[in-house]
């Protein structure tokens, strides 16, 4: 009886989630919730530079993994090593964009972005601490948390180093 009840509840939850996802996609499709970042021409060019930096960083990381593999280190075959490469690429891209003033779009609110990133970093780090408590140190949560913290630090340092907004010479 209980099994049937749980089955029915699970089925209902699946339908509800599907309906919510469909509603969200429909709203996005119609543009009601569309939040698209707008970048000017300099920012788009700077993002290209950042992408190139990230690409070559990941290539270098993969070469390092290949060399480690040659010397008998099996680290490069582990999923976390591959995931760390992705995280490293994202980190280089985002940091490059922030340094080149090309990360925040013209229509974006930096304070809102900082708050959301800080919350996401905290959630990931708490999950990572739970994983460490359970014996797993290097997890995706830890890498994502460290990535977000590094991005936040870069963003704050860049904001602090930037001269007064109305100052001409930067």
């Amino acid at each position: 009886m209980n099994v049937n009840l749980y089955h029915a509840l699970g089925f209902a939850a699946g339908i509800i989630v599907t309906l919510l996802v469909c509603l969200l996609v429909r709203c996005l499709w119609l543009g009601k919730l569309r939040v698209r970042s707008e970048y000017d021409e300099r920012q788009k060019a700077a993002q290209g530079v950042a992408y190139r930096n990230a690409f070559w960083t990941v290539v270098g990381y993969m070469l390092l993994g290949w060399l480690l593999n040659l010397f008998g280190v099996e680290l490069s075959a582990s999923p976390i090593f591959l995931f760390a490469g992705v995280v490293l690429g994202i980190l280089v891209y985002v940091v490059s964009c922030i340094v080149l003033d090309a990360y925040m779009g013209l229509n974006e609110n930096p304070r809102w972005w900082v708050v959301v990133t800080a919350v996401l970093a905290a959630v990931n780090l708490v999950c990572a601490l739970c994983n460490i408590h359970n014996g797993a140190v290097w997890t995706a949560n830890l890498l994502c948390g460290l990535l977000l913290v590094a991005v936040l630090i870069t963003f704050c340092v860049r904001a602090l180093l930037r001269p007064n907004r109305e100052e001409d010479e930067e």
Partner: protein
Amino acid sequence: MKNLRLKAARAAKDLSQQALADLVGVSRQTINGIEKGSYNPTIRLCIAICKALDKTLDELFWEE
């Protein structure tokens, strides 16, 4: 090379970098980069800046 003519034209209109950036739809850093000479704008942006400052392309961007 610094674009002092752009800076002077902007100052003559009593516009800050942010105000000019808002007028032409770019970030303040982009206007700053053009004035400093560290960013080379497209002709589309040059025209938008000229229209915002009531100047010609020659007056703001032509190098003698």
